[in-house]
């Protein structure tokens, strides 16, 4: 009941009159009260001078009373205007982001798929020579470490492109990698030297071609890493594309 009672304030729609008109109404109403008080005092025998002085004090702080009445009349409207303004701003911002993302996504799709196909074509025809571990200069202490990158690239997939997987986009070392039965997406990303800055980790695409056609699977790698999604095993010939994102 109290809630319903509180909501009664919304029964009358917000005053839509110009603010100056609302202000003038309140001032005229308060002025009438002071004038009526003065008349009554004079009728009761008070001198006009004293009556005017006393009448002016009958409402206490008139400006305060005026401000209270004004807040009641316009407060709801001001609040609604602020909410409207904030919502409009948020809506415009969201629209802007949506359009920007849509345009970005379209550009990525148009440019990206063309680039993917071109890169894939070059990868398929490129013979990747296995990296020979580079002997680094012995650091102080005398222990020699092999180049860690020498383990990231797999040997060439023995001439069969179908026994490889391909990684493109925003990873440190994109390229062709040898497929194995236990190769998962996160393992492959690790083999690629992790994501680059601005890589869109939440929308990594696995492009899988089978006899039934091409399927694009969007994967949020963070969800996989956090355990919310199971590990995703890769199949022969999978193409992994890591798009760019500034969010």
């Amino acid at each position, binding site marked *: 009941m109290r809630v319903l009672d509180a909501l*009664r304030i919304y*029964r*009358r729609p917000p005053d839509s009159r110009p603010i100056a008109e609302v202000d003038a*109404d309140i001032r005229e*109403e*308060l002025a009438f009260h002071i*004038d009526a*008080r003065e008349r009554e005092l004079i009728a009761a025998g008070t001198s006009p001078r004293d009556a005017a002085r006393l009448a002016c004090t009958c409402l206490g702080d008139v400006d305060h009373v005026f401000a209270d009445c004004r807040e*009641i009349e316009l407060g709801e409207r001001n609040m609604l205007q602020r909410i409207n303004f904030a919502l409009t701003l948020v809506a415009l911002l969201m629209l802007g982001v949506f359009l920007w993302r849509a345009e970005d996504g379209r550009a990525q799709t148009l440019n990206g798929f063309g680039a993917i196909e071109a890169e894939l074509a070059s990868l398929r025809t490129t013979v990747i020579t296995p990296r020979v571990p580079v002997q680094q200069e012995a650091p102080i202490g005398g222990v020699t470490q092999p180049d860690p990158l020498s383990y990231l690239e797999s040997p060439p997939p023995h001439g069969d492109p179908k026994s490889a997987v391909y990684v493109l986009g925003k990873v440190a070392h994109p390229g062709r990698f040898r497929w194995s039965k236990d190769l998962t997406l996160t393992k492959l990303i690790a083999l690629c030297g992790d994501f680059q800055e601005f890589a869109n980790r939440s929308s990594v695409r696995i492009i899988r071609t089978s006899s039934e056609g091409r399927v694009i699977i969007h994967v949020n790698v963070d969800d996989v890493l956090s355990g919310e999604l199971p590990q995703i095993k890769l199949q022969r010939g999978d193409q992994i594309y890591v798009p760019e994102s500034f969010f």
Partner: protein
Amino acid sequence: MAEERIDLVPGTLEMLVLKALQPGALHGYAVARRIRQMSDDVLTVEEGSLYPALHRMARRGLIEAEWGRSEANRRAKFYRLTRDGNARLGEHVVQWDRVSTAVTRVLAAEWRTA
């Protein structure tokens, strides 16, 4: 006489304004005057709080306002009780009756000493 006047019990202003408006439309000054008269000059409405209360009640739909002419032929804002206001007055009266009865019982209670 002025010394005998007392301020309104907190929370009763709305009820008294609604009651004052029950016979018909009044401007703010007349509302304060009627409450004073109905209480035989005992209750005084703090006039500074009367107008915010009137505006709040109008916003809540308990009363409605309309500009008209006063007895001195001056433009004045008259307030009239609405149907919701009348219903609200009924609720106030019931609540007040219960409270005043309870308070009276408490005050009338006699302590038994051993």
